[in-house]
C-alpha cells in the first residue's frame, strides 16, 4: 500500500461517506493503477510511474469539490429540506386554530358585565399558534402576520375583547363574536378562541349588547359598532 496514493485518495474523496466514498475511491485507484501500468510499460520505475499518474489526475481540491457537489450536496440539501418541512409543520399553523383563554369580566357600576379582558401574555402564546405575532413595544402592542402588522396604542397588561378584534381585523381577518350557550368565543378568520369566563357572565354580556350572535365584520370601522 503506497502512502502517497492513499493520501491522495483520502483527500480526493473528502466530503463523501460510507459506501459511496468506497466506490469513488476504488474507481480512482483502479484508474490510477491503469496509468501506472501504462507508464511502467514505457519504462518508468513503479514509484516514478505512480507519481506521474497522481500528477496526471489533476488538482485534489477540484476532484473533491466536484465529488461533493455531485454526491453529498444533493443529499444534504434533501435533509435540510426535510428538516425545514418538519419545522414548518410544527410551527406554522395549518388550517384553523381553536383554543380557549382565561378572560376577566369587567363590571359597570351596576354590576353588569360590559366587557372581558384577556392577559397579553396569554394572547402572545395563543395567537402565535394561529400565525400571529404579538409583541409589546414602547408605544403599544404590535400584532403582525406575514408582512402586515398593526399597533394597539399604549403598553398594557391585558386587552379588551373589542380592541383585540379590532387589531385582528386590521391584520386582515374577518372577525366576529359568538355568544351562544353561555359562552363567548372570539372569531377571526377560521380561528376560534373560547373565553374561559365565570358562568352566567356570557348571558349578562349578551343581554346588553345589540349584536346578533355570530355576526362577522370585515370593515374594521364596524368592529365597535356592530360587535
Amino acid at each position, binding site marked *: 500500500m503506497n502512502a502517497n496514493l492513499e493520501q491522495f485518495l483520502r483527500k480526493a474523496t473528502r466530503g463523501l461517506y460510507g459506501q459511496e466514498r468506497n466506490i469513488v475511491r476504488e474507481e480512482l485507484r483502479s*484508474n490510477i493503477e*491503469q496509468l501506472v501500468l501504462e507508464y511502467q510499460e514505457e519504462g518508468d520505475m513503479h514509484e516514478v510511474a505512480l507519481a506521474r499518474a497522481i500528477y496526471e489526475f489533476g488538482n485534489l481540491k477540484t476532484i473533491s469539490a466536484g465529488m461533493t457537489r455531485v454526491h453529498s450536496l444533493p443529499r444534504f440539501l434533501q435533509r435540510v429540506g426535510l428538516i425545514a418541512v418538519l419545522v414548518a409543520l410544527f410551527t406554522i399553523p395549518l388550517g384553523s386554530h381553536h383554543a380557549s383563554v382565561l378572560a376577566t369580566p369587567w363590571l359597570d357600576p351596576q354590576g353588569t358585565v360590559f366587557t372581558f379582558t384577556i392577559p397579553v401574555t396569554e394572547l402572545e402564546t395563543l395567537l402565535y399558534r394561529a400565525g400571529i405575532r404579538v409583541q409589546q413595544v414602547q408605544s403599544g402592542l404590535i400584532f403582525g402576520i406575514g408582512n402586515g402588522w398593526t399597533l394597539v396604542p399604549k403598553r398594557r397588561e391585558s386587552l379588551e375583547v373589542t380592541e383585540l378584534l379590532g387589531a385582528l381585523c386590521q391584520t386582515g381577518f374577518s372577525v366576529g363574536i359568538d355568544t351562544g350557550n353561555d359562552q363567548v368565543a372570539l372569531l377571526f378568520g377560521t380561528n376560534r378562541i373560547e373565553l374561559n369566563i365565570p358562568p352566567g357572565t356570557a348571558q349578562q354580556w349578551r343581554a346588553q349588547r345589540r349584536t346578533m350572535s355570530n355576526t362577522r365584520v370585515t370593515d374594521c370601522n364596524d368592529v365597535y359598532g356592530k360587535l
Partner: protein
Amino acid sequence: MDPNLFKGNLELILLSILEREEMYGIEIAKAANERKDGYFVLNVGSLYPTLHKLEQQRRVAVDSRTTARGGAPVRYYKITAAGRKILAQKRKAYAEYHSAITAIGGAG
C-alpha cells in the same frame, strides 16, 4: 481556450466521446485530448464528477470489468438511450447558439 466554455460543455464532450464506444475514465480523457489535438487538456480527475452526475441522471450506465492490461476492475461508462437523446438535444442547442453568435458578429 476559455475555461468557462469548457466547463459548460463537458457533458456534451463526454457524451460525444461515449457515443461510439464504452470507455473508462483514463480512456475518455485520452480520447478527448487526442480528438481535439490538444486544444484543451482534460485532467483525468475532473471528469469523474461529471461522469457520476451522468450516471445519476441515467444518461450513462456503468459496468465494472478488468482491462486487457490487467489490474483491478475499472468502471466502464456506456451511453444510454436517454444519454443519446440528451446528446442530440445538446448538439442542436450548441449549433443554434453558435449560429446566433456568428450572426451577430461574435465569431469575428
